[in-house]
């Protein structure tokens, strides 16, 4: 087990390093000189050269890369080419909003998907199962931003029960925080919930056919109790995989939804960075998003070991 986790940690570190190179290289090959952009079209070559020296972009790429990377672990993300502000605190600030949004969205997705998917599996031969499957199909087909606009139209415009956007920090006013986060989280969560419910359904269907469920019933357990006691953990193994992938999707999906609901999250920071050609800010934000996705994958891998004892021993017999 320790060996397995050690291997996962190594994978996480190596892929983070590779991601850093990739992100940096991608930004480096993009046409456009930050110094020239900052000074505008009428700048003299001398001024541009001075600006380059100030940004440090006149150094060789390898030196620039090392300078950038070595700052990341300590939270030193550099200074914005546009505003000159430190980027680290900005990202930390925005990351909080996005994390709340994603966690809230994931919570909604799970709460919707698990009972819905399980019910659709247990009743897969009945009309109820068919209706549940159909509903999730509709959910899968709706993109999150469209769901967001629909929700705003219903709850904020027509019924006027929830705000259409904005953000209040949790510490300032928990009620306002919740109200403002509810619609964006719903538009992310409902769509992801629909997708997730299909995976939950097929995982539960697989478990239903397992011999050990029949054993549990032969012991005197009702079907639902057998499914809960013996099926849930087994069904969780494939579902956790999808959950991890979905968390990553949610992080990226948050970029769009934050725009719809004017939430000051990482997504809107990224879009602002792109609009202002603040290349270092974009580079940093993308890096943070990539590391977040890798961290999620690492957590999923670690969770497998908790769920499945077969992964704990790596002896030849245990490996089957």
């Amino acid at each position, binding site marked *: 087990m320790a060996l397995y986790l050690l291997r996962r940690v190594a994978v996480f570190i190596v892929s983070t390093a590779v991601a850093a190179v990739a992100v940096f290289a991608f930004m480096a090959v993009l046409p456009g000189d930050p110094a020239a952009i900052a000074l505008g079209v009428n700048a003299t070559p001398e001024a541009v050269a001075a600006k380059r020296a100030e940004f440090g972009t006149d150094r060789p790429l390898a030196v620039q890369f090392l300078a950038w990377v070595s700052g990341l672990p300590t939270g030193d993300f550099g200074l914005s080419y546009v505003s000159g502000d430190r980027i680290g605190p900005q990202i930390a600030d925005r990351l909080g909003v996005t994390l709340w949004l994603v966690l809230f969205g994931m919570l909604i997705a799970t709460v919707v998907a698990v009972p819905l998917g399980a019910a659709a599996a247990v009743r897969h031969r009945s009309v109820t199962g068919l209706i549940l499957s159909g509903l999730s199909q509709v959910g899968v087909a709706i993109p999150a931003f469209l769901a967001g606009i629909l929700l705003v139209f219903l709850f904020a415009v027509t019924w006027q029960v929830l705000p259409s956007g904005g953000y209040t920090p949790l510490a300032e006013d928990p009620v306002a925080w919740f109200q403002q986060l509810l619609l964006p989280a719903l538009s992310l969560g409902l769509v992801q919930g629909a997708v997730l419910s299909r995976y939950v359904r097929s995982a539960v269907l697989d478990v239903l056919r397992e011999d050990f469920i029949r054993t549990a019933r*032969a012991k005197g357990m009702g*079907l639902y109790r057998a499914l809960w006691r013996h099926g849930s953990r087994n069904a969780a193994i494939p579902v956790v995989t999808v959950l991890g992938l979905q968390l990553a999707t949610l992080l990226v999906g948050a970029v769009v939804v934050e725009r719809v609901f004017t939430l000051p999250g990482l997504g809107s920071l990224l879009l602002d960075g792109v609009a202002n050609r603040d290349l270092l800010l974009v580079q940093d934000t993308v890096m943070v998003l990539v590391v977040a996705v890798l961290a999620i994958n690492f957590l999923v891998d670690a969770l497998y070991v908790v769920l499945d004892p077969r992964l704990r021993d790596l002896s030849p017999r245990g490996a089957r």
Partner: protein
Amino acid sequence: MSVLTGSVLTVDALRIDAGAIPLVRDVSFAIGPGERVGLIGESGSGKSLTALSLLGLLPEGVRASGSARLDGVPGDLVGADERELSKVRGKRVSMVFQEPMTALNPVMRVGDQVAEVMLLHRTQPSRARALAAAVDLLDRVRLPEPKATARAYPHQLSGGQRQRVMLAIALANDPALLICDEPTTALDVTVQAQMLELIVELTAERDSALLFITHDLAVVATVCERVLVMYGGRVVESGDVYEVFTAPRHPYTDGLLAASDLSAVDERGRLRTIPGVVPGGGEFPDGCVFRNRCPRATDQCVQTPGWTGTPERGFACWHPVGGGQ
């Protein structure tokens, strides 16, 4: 067939259908306390379905009708609702399945899986006591280091060891009837004999009756006192194991015995077989189900043959083998 008095299990006119397809017809038999009865036949003869119907564990879309009464249980097992059946399963009747590799929950410790069946039926007052009883049971089924085994996960045990765990689960509540569905088929030959010995010994200790399903005649001969031969969803012959195996009356039983005799060969020097294959569910001929594979079949066999003899010893055939008829 009449119903034996004082029997543990009495099955009467059991039939099982998958929609419009008949799978088991007119099966009646009784098992006395502590009696060991074998149910034999080729794959597809309806043996396993008969057993599953007694526990109410038939696959979806498959229905049983008729009657199956278990001593000490007020209602009929056939058609009983889930609540009633779950009180009986694991307590009065339990079952060991064919495939030990998949029958246990892979993410739960073996000891917990054994203890569970006692906690479920409240035969042990607490988790700690149930776990202690589980370790005892694992010892009784002769698993090495029962304490350590109780803490193991199924993947850390071999197939034979897992089947012993299944037996421990099945016997935990001293059931009146133990059903074993090909419990040794998936095991190595060397492990089979020990497993069979264990089943006989532990059921005898508890005076549990045994319904033993297999297609292996040698296994029936070692384990059982009485045998029911099934073909095409019907019982075609029954009786004392020795009698049925030495003087079979139904041509199907005769064919089975000839096919399992490894010293006898046909005129071309090959081992004997029963010609043809077992038809799929619902594709058996009407009248006598065996008539399309039977060497003795005549026009009379279009009619379903009645039962000849007593419920304990008899057969269903127009042209029985031997017996001077």
